């Protein structure tokens, strides 16, 4: 368990004000917020890498506020991987064991387990300079977990990665969290990361906590304007995956590929949702008949809300399109979006 009580940090460029947090043991907790909100500062303050002005930090029942980072029982993984460039992958992974008294067999066991789980076997004798982003991040994760920390701190581990690697590392994080039973605290500015990985989260803005709670709660019931804007994701629905289809209520949405999980979320950007009066004659694979539920003037374009069997979809249209289609409340229309426009998480 980890507890932060009224923590205040005052650095030249960044500050944290009166932060209180409680994360239970083995939880996957996410710190969200825009760039410069102080997420990384909070992470580094928990790690003891930057000094705090007042407040207490308790990790696993120990007050670590005055302890140096090496005595806190934490590991940290950075966005830019921060692998030691003069050491091989294997030496990087084993680095932390120099400072921990661990039985030889136990060392071997952890090493084998991490190398298998993160699929690093073929990379062990290479230097970090020759690896791809996804590989680097897998090595960084193995290096952080081999010391079996009380808490693993992750500073935007996904944001420097290409979409393909992102998915891979996200899956790896999910698996590692399940198997190692370590508390994960992850910083992200991406809400979909939080939804797919974490149980609870908090939103930080300008050095203060705006809201703490279940991820779904923050998403559905933001308590402040800032949080509402921050999580404001349109056309986002919880779904059940069936083969390549995502099912919501009575709707079956073709996503174009199969998914390992049963439950998840899909989202479609409003500009990818096309409206027409009649059924489309195109290659778009998702078409639904619905009814206009509302039109909001957004200046350069209009935000049109369409109800499809009680699911609300939002589409953006230009003023001329609005007139051409004769869009007003209550009019029946068809909407369509490509399978490739669907964001699954």
């Amino acid at each position: 368990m980890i507890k932060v009580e009224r923590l205040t940090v005052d650095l030249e460029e960044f500050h944290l004000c009166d932060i209180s947090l409680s994360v239970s043991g083995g939880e996957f907790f996410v710190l969200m917020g825009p760039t410069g909100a102080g997420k990384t500062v909070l992470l580094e303050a928990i790690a003891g890498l930057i000094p705090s002005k007042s407040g207490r930090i308790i990790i696993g029942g120990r007050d670590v506020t005055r302890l140096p980072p090496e005595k806190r029982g934490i590991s940290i993984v950075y966005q830019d991987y921060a692998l030691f460039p003069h050491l091989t992958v294997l030496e990087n992974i084993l680095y932390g064991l120099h400072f921990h008294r661990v039985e030889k067999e136990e060392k071997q066991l952890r090493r084998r387990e991490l190398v298998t789980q993160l699929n690093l076997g073929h990379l062990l004798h290479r230097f970090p300079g020759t690896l791809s982003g996804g590989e680097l991040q897998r090595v960084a994760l193995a290096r952080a977990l081999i010391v079996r920390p009380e808490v693993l701190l992750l500073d935007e581990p996904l944001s420097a990665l290409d979409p393909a690697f992102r998915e891979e590392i996200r899956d790896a994080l999910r698996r590692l969290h399940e198997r190692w039973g370590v508390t994960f605290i992850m910083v992200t500015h991406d809400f979909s990361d939080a939804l797919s990985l974490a149980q609870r989260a908090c939103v930080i803005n300008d050095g203060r906590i705006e809201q703490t709670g279940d991820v779904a709660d923050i998403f559905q019931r933001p308590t402040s304007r800032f949080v509402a804007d921050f999580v404001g994701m349109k056309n986002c629905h919880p779904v059940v995956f069936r083969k390549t289809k995502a099912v919501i209520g009575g709707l079956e949405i073709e996503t174009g590929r199969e998914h390992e999980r049963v439950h998840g979320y899909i989202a479609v950007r409003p500009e990818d949702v096309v409206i027409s009066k009649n059924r489309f004659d195109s290659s778009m694979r998702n078409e639904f008949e619905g009814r206009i539920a509302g039109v909001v003037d957004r200046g350069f374009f209009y935000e049109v809300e369409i109800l499809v069997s009680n699911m609300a979809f939002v589409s953006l249209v230009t003023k001329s399109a609005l007139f051409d289609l004769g869009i007003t409340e209550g009019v029946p229309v068809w909407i369509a979006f490509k399978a490739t426009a669907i964001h699954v998480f």
Partner: protein
Amino acid sequence: MKTRELFFWVMLASAAVIMAFILLPIVQLLTAPSLPMLNETIRDREVLRSIWLSIYTAGCAALISFVFGTPLAYLLARTRFRGKGLIESVIDLPIVIPHPVVGIAILSVAGRNHWIGEILAALGVRIMGSVTGIVTVLTFVGIPFYINAAKEGFESVPVRLEKVSRSLGGSMLSTFFRITFPLAGRSVLVGAIMCLARAVSEFGAVVIVAYHPMIAPVMIYERFEAYGLKYSQPVAFWLVFICLVLFLALRLLTLYRKKGG
């Protein structure tokens, strides 16, 4: 296109002038002495002793700079404080002070009418006219080069790597020796070589503090004064030759390390 080509040729021409300016005197120096004369000079025990003393004292200066300059270089690379610029200027002072003045300054501290000089005298340490004195002077003029290079080396190591090492259980000490120092190693070595090079070439400050025992530059000066150009050239040849070989070897070592790392 044509103007660009002209521009290129002008650049190339001035580069060639500079290369000639540097190389001509050195080539002339190296080719002027006849072989029998060179042979005779290298058999001269006095010459050998002075060249050895030059390299030995410069090596000591580089070693002292390494041992005492490394912590300062690390501190300067990793901390920010008010007056840091002032400290950096102080470190650069030995570079800008005229060389004989350095010698005079050191003697005025190490002399009998200063308390440090008295303590040294009581301890039996002699600065004036001794190897200790030469090493002191050479360290004084060489250490800024070492500290500046090492500082740049430490600055180039990302702080994050140290943070990760600390979080994995490494103390500040083990983090320094396992991460920071190995990664800055090449800059440290280059700094030591520059310090060594600077120390070998020092004349003005040494001649004030210790005319004897004679280091090579002083001997070359003495031969020039007493017997003229022709007699100073062979000694100069051997000093330059040995130094070139030494620096080439060290340079190759750093290149090798670069590839290895």
